[in-house]
């Protein structure tokens, strides 16, 4: 039985569930002793340990109450220490008793694809859930490949949660559509609610934030990360002033993506009355002078997002004063922001560099020379994000200074295919030589060589994530003129812990053969403008047994390739294929042969769905069958 990663249960479990919930079992149960207490429909007490198929007898004999009660009590008390969801999934498969205990003690409900299971079903099983972690659209939605209005709405989840239990404390959503109404409903329905994290979501604006601020009296975390915050009717609300006047319990406040003017005096007052605040990330409308004042109010910050890092108009900021503020912030371990960095102030961060574990300069347009003095102090850096304006020279400095670097991301200043590109294979080699403990890398460049990638594969065997984006499509090794097959091949061969891979440049079927042969642990694979024939897709789907997420665009793979994955699609979270060579018939065949798979064909307009060629295909396993909220330009086969 393949391991199920999400909260969705298999069909046979469902059968067992219902057959054991006989009235006697419920009465004879522990009567409210369970950890969640209260009245719930699911407290079956008649446990047994055999884990077999359900009996065919209509009434199971009442089991001896005492010993089994003890067993279940003990079990629940032990299981609540299991936090990792994969461990919990494994525990739930042991037997029905463990299944039930685990279900009742699971506090965090993680659903990797919000359409894989319905809110009602998930909450019926995990009635004690206090935290909801949901993911909606797949990553390619960030690049405008999903039309607006495709789906992944939070509304059905929050309504179901309100009916299931009022004890919700935490919500974390990624790539979902959350409306202001949803936020208001959330704020009103859950008195213990204290933690909201929204990542890459859309659909809400400042009015929604205002309600959260005002009504969630116990709010500890409000993290808004890279969301598309838009205000309908362009009516911006001053949500910062809506926080209660009393001392707040805020620990983390991040609003970099809320790109509207900020009422600074309200913000300063809020920071002043939030003694627990440790993480503050402001938007770029906060000037450097204002930032300094905030830092003075909150000297115990551990994470700081600086906003613009430039002094405001008419603001006369002394660089020494700023440096003093950083000197006083002895707990800072994570710095980000730097949206419009004025290089003359950059050195003010020097006092905190030695303690920094994470530094995000990916919006800072600076040169290698400007980076150097800062970088050389950052000995303890684990995570570093930077813009390619620092060039290969800057990367050499990073390699020299940050021996313990685990994660590096190099973003392009100019994200086009024909830009000059300041980083190249030389920079990659330098990094690999200096940062031997590297685990994760995302690297955008214009020029790359196989040799450099091979070198990295040998110098950094601990790599878990390798994402190389050569921005020019089909671009070969710029020295040898060959395809990039060998480079990526070396990565999968030498980096034995690799779970995430993104390929680019000129690639033939060969690279996919390598990935299939050596990339046995790969869970996420991103492919764009690569491969020659269906063989590529076939290799991957047949060889990568752990593959969970496969996103492909603009590659010449057709129905034959698609059909070769039929044995594996139930083990995957999703498959995305756009601008490939799929036909409607091929997709229909997959849909027909796999009833628990939802096969969506997405068009630009409803008309396009009648065509024989499929421009965009998104398929995923689901316990619920076709969703009922699909817009007119989505056809579910």
């Amino acid at each position, binding site marked *: 039985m393949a391991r199920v990663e999400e909260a969705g249960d298999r069909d046979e479990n469902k059968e067992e569930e219902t057959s054991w919930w006989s009235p006697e079992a419920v009465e004879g149960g522990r009567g409210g002793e369970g950890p969640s207490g209260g009245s719930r429909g699911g407290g079956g007490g008649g446990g047994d340990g055999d884990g077999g198929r359900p009996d065919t007898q209509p009434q199971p004999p009442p089991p001896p109450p005492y010993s089994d009660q003890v067993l279940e009590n003990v079990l629940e008390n032990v299981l609540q220490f299991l936090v990792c969801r994969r461990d919990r999934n494994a525990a739930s498969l042991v037997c029905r008793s463990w299944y039930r205990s685990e279900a009742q003690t699971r506090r965090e409900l993680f659903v990797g694809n919000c359409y894989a299971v319905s809110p009602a079903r998930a909450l019926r099983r995990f009635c004690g859930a206090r935290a909801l972690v949901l993911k909606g659209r797949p990553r390619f939605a960030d*690049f*405008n490949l999903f039309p607006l209005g495709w789906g992944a709405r939070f509304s059905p989840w929050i309504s179901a949660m309100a009916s299931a239990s009022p004890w919700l404390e935490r919500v974390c959503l990624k790539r979902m559509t959350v409306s202001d109404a949803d936020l208001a409903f959330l704020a009103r329905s859950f008195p213990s609610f204290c933690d909201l994290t929204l990542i890459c979501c859309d659909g809400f604006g400042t009015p929604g934030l205002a309600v959260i601020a005002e009504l969630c009296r116990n709010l500890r975390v409000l993290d808004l990360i890279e969301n598309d915050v838009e205000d309908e009717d362009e009516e911006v609300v001053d949500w910062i002033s809506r926080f209660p006047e009393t001392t707040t319990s805020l620990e983390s406040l991040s609003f970099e993506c809320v790109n509207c*003017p*900020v009422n600074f005096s309200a913000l300063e007052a809020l920071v002043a009355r939030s003694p627990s605040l440790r993480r503050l990330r402001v938007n770029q409308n906060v000037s450097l002078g204002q930032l300094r004042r905030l830092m003075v109010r909150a000297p115990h910050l551990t994470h700081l997002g600086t906003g613009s890092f430039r002094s405001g108009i008419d603001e006369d900021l002394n660089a020494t004063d700023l440096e003093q503020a950083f000197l006083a912030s002895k707990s800072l371990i994570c710095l980000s922001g730097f949206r*419009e960095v004025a290089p003359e102030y950059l050195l003010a961060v020097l006092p905190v560099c030695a303690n920094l574990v994470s530094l995000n300069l990916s919006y800072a347009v600076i040169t290698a020379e400007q980076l150097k003095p800062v970088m050389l102090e950052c000995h303890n850096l684990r995570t570093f994000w930077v813009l390619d*304006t620092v060039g290969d020279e800057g990367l050499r400095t990073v390699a020299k200074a940050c021996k313990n670097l685990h994660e590096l991301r190099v973003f*392009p200043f100019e994200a086009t295919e024909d830009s000059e590109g300041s980083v190249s294979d030389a920079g990659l080699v330098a990094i690999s030589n200096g940062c031997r403990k590297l685990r994760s890398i995302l690297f955008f460049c214009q020029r790359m060589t196989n040799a450099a990638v091979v070198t990295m594969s040998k110098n950094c065997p601990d790599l878990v994530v390798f994402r190389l984006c050569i921005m020019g499509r089909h671009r070969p090794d710029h020295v040898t003129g060959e395809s990039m097959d060998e480079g990526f091949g070396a990565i999968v061969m030498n980096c034995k812990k690799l779970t995430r891979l993104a390929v680019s440049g000129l690639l033939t079927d060969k690279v996919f053969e390598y990935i299939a042969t050596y990339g046995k642990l790969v869970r996420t694979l991103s492919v764009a403008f690569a491969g020659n024939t269906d063989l590529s897709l076939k290799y991957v789907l047949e060889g990568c047994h752990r593959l969970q997420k496969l996103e492909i*665009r603009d590659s010449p793979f057709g129905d034959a390739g698609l059909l070769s994955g039929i044995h594996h699609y139930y083990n995957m979270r999703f498959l995305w294929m756009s601008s490939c060579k799929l036909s409607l018939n091929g997709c229909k065949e997959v849909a027909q042969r796999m009833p628990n798979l939802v096969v969506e064909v997405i068009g630009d307009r409803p008309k396009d769905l009648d065509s024989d060629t499929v421009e965009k295909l998104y398929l995923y396993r689901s316990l619920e069958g076709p969703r009922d909220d699909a817009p007119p330009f989505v056809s579910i086969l």
Partner: protein
Amino acid sequence: MEDDHESMGDACPQLLNLIPNEKVREKRIGGLDAAEEKKLELTLGLPGGVGEEEEPSVLSSCIFSKVSKTSSRRVVLGSEQQEAGLFQLQSRGGYGTEWPHKTTWNCEIFDEQQSLEKEKALGDTENEAGSNTSFQTRASAGVAVVGWPPIRAFRKNLASSSVKQSVELQNGNIDEKVKVASCKKGLLIKINMDGIPIGRKVDLNACGSYKKLSFAVEYLFLDLLRAQKETSTNDLRMDEEAKQAFKSLLDGSGEYTLVYEDNEGDRMLVGDVPWDMFVSSVKRLRVLKSSDLSSLHDWEARKEQQLSVEYGGEGLAN
């Protein structure tokens, strides 16, 4: 570099021959004379020389609707022009979440471009084409593809927004880059229509003019509007009604009017300012019912009032 072409040939079997015979030379649009032809000539040079070219903007509106979708195509400039090198026109594979690849009205653009390219191709051979080494980087300056490179929207705008910054650099490289990058490719703007719950995104750079924008709006919303108007059983009549809605979007006389929000937050009628000025200041678009327009002025007044109440006269940051 010729080897590269060969190896890539395996990956891209489609060859598009735009110059079937010599007679093409006679067919010119609008009677381009030698001087103009020279201006339009295609040179294969390093990306640095992009600035003065008007050619990228022409190529960028190319839509190969008739050709099947392979991820890249090569254009062969006739047998005698092979030495001039090959230039590669990248595909519109993923491009056009909001852009038609099949509708008929685009074909006229395609034909127009096709002839223009022929002009260029011929012009090319007359002047020694530059080195072939950068043919890939050079030619792909033309057509943008949606979602590539895979960077989220707020990172993509980095180059253009940093025009505001006064970055002092040793060799001033970045300033140059900023100038080049500020001809934003693929400018996607959100557009909503009254009565239709789902918003769309439209690429203004691909439109190039108000007229095309108007067509694009119709393209985006026609089906959705039709679905909403499902009142009459007569399909034809429904079609007509729906189509009628999109007539006269720009002059205020039709059923709907196109308005936009600029970078200062003001709502304006689309069509008043020159296209380029419009593109540089537009933030969002809206298709309003013309009957709601008169309340536009009242709305503006209300907004002013509201903002002053919200912020209590203390002023916003900065």
